């Protein structure tokens, strides 16, 4: 229904563009006046004025309609004698009424429900009809208003610019508000978690086994129960595993990525560059889940075999396999970015170095790389936050057991893996186990934020030094 309305509004107002254009032309000829803007601006003006108020009205209406109908229906149901003790039961009855209206309810229908369902569809009809009428009125009013403005030869150019500026502002506002919304939802759930589990027990605990948290009511937890729980949510093994795997990944990706970036930018002929750069970038396009099963099914067992042949015990899910594959995944980020950065170092610096007799490799090492360093550091830190946030590869190849180990051949786990493990399947939302996922998410978010901040500070410092 709403889609049809939106479609009609858009079609109608777009067609007004031509009307507005020709109308203004004829006005200017009739009255022999010079227009304040090009005719097409009057066209845009009409389009914007006829569509935006109607669309905003539709949006607001759609937001409030269900809420209003719901309160009306629950009230009428109560008047007819329906009994509900709290909000949840009221919601349940409302859902039943809706299902009866849609014909998808298969339980017993008593008279109260039946009556309510009838009044529900009645209200729905009233609301829909009045919506259509009101939208129609809105459009007519705004078209009349804007046509009047056009007749008075208003400054359509400025007005169109203002409206467009407003639209762009609203778009960025939506992006910012969404981010804030996500942060707050993480924050509130985490606060619930930390009201049960002491934050220091979480941050410095060395044991992670959230499946032990079988408590029904988190708010009424006894001291004995808490003693049982206090070492189930230790964050240290997770951050250790995460950093460890990220470190292995960077150990692989930084040298290979940086060197291939240098090769691409400085040595490769344009032909080689044209062919090989897209090929490297394909690495970035491979879905991480593909990397994941490659790590779990090929690389992991391969390491295990090699380990066995030289008498080492290698777990088939190992930090080494996951880190290695993650490193390969990250190579294109580093190589592509550092290639761009190195390319943007001005040729005049290279010329200056050649002119005192430096060779190509001396020039690269002592002039080009230092000049490109801020960008290179930036690309590496970007890759680090990518590695920390990466999920699929570690879920498949790193293992689930939260071992606190620095042996790369053992299985280990990461923050992201644990979030996945906790939220897979049916959940009780008031259990500390589920809430711990939000705490982990918040911690990950804060860690990435700090990393980005440090990266930007470092880059800025180098910029000041080298600009």
């Amino acid at each position, binding site marked *: 229904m709403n889609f049809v309305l939106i479609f009609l509004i858009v079609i109608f107002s777009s067609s007004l563009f031509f009307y507005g254009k020709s109308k203004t032309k004829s006005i200017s000829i009739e009255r022999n006046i010079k227009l304040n803007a090009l005719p097409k601006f009057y066209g845009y003006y009409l389009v914007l004025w006829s569509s935006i108020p109607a669309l905003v009205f539709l949006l607001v209406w759609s937001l409030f309609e269900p809420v209003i109908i719901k309160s009306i229906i629950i009230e009428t149901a109560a008047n007819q004698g329906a009994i509900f003790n709290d909000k949840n039961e009221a919601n349940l009855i409302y859902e039943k009424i809706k299902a009866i209206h849609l014909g998808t309810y298969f339980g017993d229908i008593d008279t109260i429900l039946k009556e309510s369902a009838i009044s529900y569809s009645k209200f729905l009809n009233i609301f829909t009809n009045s919506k259509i009428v009101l939208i129609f009125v809105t459009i007519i009013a705004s078209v009349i208003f804007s046509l009047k403005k056009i007749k008075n030869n208003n400054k359509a150019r400025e007005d169109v610019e203002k409206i467009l500026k407003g639209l762009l502002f609203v778009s960025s506002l939506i992006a910012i508000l969404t981010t804030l919304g996500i942060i707050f939802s993480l924050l509130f759930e985490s606060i619930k978690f930390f009201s049960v589990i002491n934050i220091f027990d979480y941050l410095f605990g060395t044991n992670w086994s959230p499946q032990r948290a079988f408590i029904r009511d988190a708010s009424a937890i006894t001291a004995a129960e808490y003693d049982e729980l206090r070492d189930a949510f230790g964050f240290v093994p997770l951050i250790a595993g995460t950093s460890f795997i990220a470190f292995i990944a960077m150990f692989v990706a930084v040298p290979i990525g940086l060197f291939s970036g240098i090769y691409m930018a400085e040595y490769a002929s344009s032909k080689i560059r044209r062919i090989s750069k897209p090929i490297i970038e394909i690495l970035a396009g491979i879905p991480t889940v593909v990397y994941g099963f490659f790590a779990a099914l090929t690389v992991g067992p391969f390491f295990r075999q090699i380990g066995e042949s030289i008498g080492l015990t290698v777990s088939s899910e190992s930090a080494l396999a996951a880190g290695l594959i993650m490193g390969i995944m990250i190579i294109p980020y580093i190589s592509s970015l550092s290639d761009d950065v190195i390319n943007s170092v001005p040729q005049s610096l290279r010329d200056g170095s050649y002119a*005192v007799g430096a060779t190509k490799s001396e020039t690269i090492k002592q002039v080009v790389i230092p000049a490109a360093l801020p960008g290179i550091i930036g690309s590496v830190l970007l890759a680090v936050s990518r590695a920390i946030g990466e999920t699929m590869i570690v879920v498949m190849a790193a293992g689930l057991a939260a071992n606190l180990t620095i042996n790369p051949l053992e299985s280990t786990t990461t923050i992201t893996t644990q979030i996945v493990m906790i939220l897979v399947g049916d959940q009780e939302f008031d259990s500390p186990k589920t809430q711990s996922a939000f705490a982990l998410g918040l911690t990950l978010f804060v860690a990435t934020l700090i990393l980005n901040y440090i990266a930007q500070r470092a880059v800025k410092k180098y910029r000041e030094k080298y600009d």
Partner: protein
Amino acid sequence: MSDVKIKSNNLNVFYGDKQALFDVNLDLNEKEVTALIGPSGCGKSTFIRCINRMNDVIDICKVTGNIEIDGVEINDENLDVVSLRERVGMVFQKPNPFPKSIYDNISYGPKIHGKGETKSELDEIVERSLKKAALWEEVKDRLDEPGTGLSGGQQQRLCIARAISVNPEVILMDEPCSALDPIATAKIEELIDELKKTYTIVIVTHSMAQAVRVSQKTGFFHLGKLIEVGKTEKIFKNPDNKMTQDYITGRFG
């Protein structure tokens, strides 16, 4: 007249299919300033870039003919470009100090050529080069600050000091003052006058007045050909060629 330092013989340069220099025969005298003038795109810069083989950097560039320095052919595949560039320094149109400290900008060349093994030797080279480039007094207290933080004129003198630091015999200057204001330009010109006591200098310039002020010999290029060359005084007062006459009086170019 002093001895010939650099001698070019039927020098031709091609960028891909396009020929940029046609049979240039030009002698440059030792410890003298030679100015190369001519309209944009006439091959002046291409010519001086042949003297230190900077054209090697450009893939599609091909050079035929001979250039000799002190009688030794330099347009030779087997020639060691590194030691050639040690002997022939270059200063570019836009000041291009490295994003390093003033000290490191100067010590870069000597370090590459293995000169100045100890810190005190390097210190000495840096001080001497900066003094020669008339920059020492302005920067001696802030040698560890970035070279890029200096003013345009100071940056260009820093680049001259960088070129001097490896003790070259020839300094090539490619429009060294075109990005500078008149005061900085005057300083550089003064410096060039001083430097010619020690070095053979070739300067490409678009300013006739500058050519008159700094050079002893002037060559006029047009469309890749060397039209006329001679004593600066003669070229600007009484040129043989009509085209030279037209150019220096501002009728074209």
